[in-house]
């Protein structure tokens, strides 16, 4: 659906690497251009029309984000450079102060490097303990596995809403409710969930959420950090500078602004925030339920087409959502991706930044297909035709 809105599709590529980044619709690009061409001023500091307009749209985007993730207040939305930046700010700006030696953080081996590595650093710095919740059949995280991993020392659960490799939808509502009841904080890496399904931080009792615009039709370089207000207020800024302070003197008396501005030092990526605004409006127009449905439909269709191909091994067939990880028998995943590129099919080969998951999977590397609503059955037919001819793979890539 909506294929005519995406200029890159006109180049003839078949884009199945949406987990890495999504394509951008014309509406997003136009809105950013419009800012630069017609009111490209700085925000929060100019007494002239262009700056007023830029400030207004910037602050309006906060409200649009609040509504999109179901938060209570727009002051709980902090703009960052992306999920990685958001997670680092949450972990080093909040959890580094909040956690004490011996406290346990529940996590899984399927998590992305941007969630695992900052916590691993805290493990070394302050002696917290990372507890890996066991993954069940097809590398899923279940509520039972979570619950069985909780101890008296559990202070935080840190997981992706949807894992970026396996693509399983984590039982956020159940985990969130249990955490709230038991004074455990709940941090969700939303990089792969917010673009593909409806998000509601209040209903799911999420305390912190991080996501990036570029995986949901928006530009690169902009993301969101959501934090429940009372927690956000306790967060220490990792960056100091303009637009985040109220006043300061040479005697070192510094007063900071309130959240969220306190956490946004310097001139932010204004055009990118405007691009994010257009991206969310675009997604809302289609509807997140509709998007999730289309992705699921494409995955089922792909599985149906390859079920009789003995050379294709799929590792997450039963997992809901729009991700497929597979290998062509006896072919290194990178060689498979290079072969598919010959047909202008874009896929991702490797461990997909979740390198600890290798310890669980039967293979180290896989080819990943990650669908979005603009993908079609016809594109999958082209892919399946290429997979059927994979005995000619080396003739093509060597």
């Amino acid at each position, binding site marked *: 659906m909506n294929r005519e809105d995406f200029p890159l599709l006109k180049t003839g590529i078949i884009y199945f690497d949406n987990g890495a980044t999504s394509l951008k619709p014309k509406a997003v690009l136009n809105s950013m251009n419009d800012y630069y061409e017609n009111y490209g001023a700085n925000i929060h500091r100019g007494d002239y029309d262009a700056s007023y307009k830029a400030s207004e749209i910037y602050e309006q985007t906060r409200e649009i984000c609040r509504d999109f993730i179901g938060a209570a207040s727009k002051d709980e939305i902090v703009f960052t450079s992306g999920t990685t930046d958001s997670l680092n700010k949450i972990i080093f700006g909040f959890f580094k102060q909040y956690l004490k030696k011996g406290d346990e953080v529940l996590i899984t081996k399927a998590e992305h490097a941007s969630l695992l590595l900052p916590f691993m650093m805290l493990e070394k710095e302050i002696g917290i303990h990372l507890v890996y919740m066991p993954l069940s059949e097809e590398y899923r995280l279940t509520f039972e596995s979570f619950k069985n991993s909780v101890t008296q020392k559990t202070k935080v659960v840190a997981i992706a809403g949807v894992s970026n490799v396996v693509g399983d939808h984590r039982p956020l509502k159940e985990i969130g409710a249990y955490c709230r009841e038991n004074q455990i904080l709940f941090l969700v890496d939303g990089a792969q969930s917010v673009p593909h399904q409806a998000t509601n931080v209040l209903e799911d009792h999420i305390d912190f959420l991080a996501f990036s615009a570029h995986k949901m039709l928006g530009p690169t370089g902009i993301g969101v950090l959501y934090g429940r207000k009372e927690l956000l207020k306790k967060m220490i800024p990792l960056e100091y500078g303009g637009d985040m302070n109220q006043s300061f003197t040479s005697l070192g008396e510094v007063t900071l602004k309130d959240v969220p501005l306190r956490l946004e030092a310097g001139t932010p990526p204004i055009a990118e925030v405007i691009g994010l605004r257009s991206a969310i409006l675009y997604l809302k127009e289609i509807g997140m339920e509709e998007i999730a449905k289309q992705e699921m439909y494409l995955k089922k269709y792909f599985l149906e087409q390859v079920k009789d191909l003995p050379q294709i091994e799929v590792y997450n067939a039963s997992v809901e959502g729009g991700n497929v990880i597979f290998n062509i028998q006896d072919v290194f*995943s*990178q060689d498979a991706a*290079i072969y598919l590129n010959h047909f202008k099919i874009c896929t991702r080969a490797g461990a997909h930044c979740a390198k600890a998951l290798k310890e669980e999977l039967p293979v*180290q590397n896989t080819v990943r297909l990650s669908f979005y609503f603009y993908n079609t059955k016809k594109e999958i037919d082209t892919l399946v035709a290429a997979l059927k001819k994979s005995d000619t793979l080396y003739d093509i*890539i060597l």
Partner: protein
Amino acid sequence: MDKELKREIILENYQHPFHKGLKKEGYLVENANNESCIDNLDISLKIEKGKIIDATFDGEACAISTSATSILLKKLIGKTLEDAKELIENYEHMINEEPYDEAALEELLAYQDIYLQPNRKTCALLPSKAVKNLLKNDGEE
């Protein structure tokens, strides 16, 4: 060397690699990986009296990296450190489209056309980079 033969050499060395299975005891070991891709191999050399007397490797990598490692290690065995360095340099010149001595490369000529796929040059250079590191201290730890 025609395209068909090149492909045959690469495939033969990918599917039946030479000395795959890492030996470490008494060997110098180096990990070879490309930041831009997912190739990950360990290479080990046994050096005695200024000569490479054995070479092994293991790991997961693409057809180009694996086969190039297989062929390169096969050719290195029996060579003095000087000759080994010369071979590596000559091979890298070929991959990087610089003047090189064709006669000395034999099977490695299978990678003569790799420059046509610039993103695969790093695959072909994976083993040579690792071996160069192993040889930089003239066989000392």
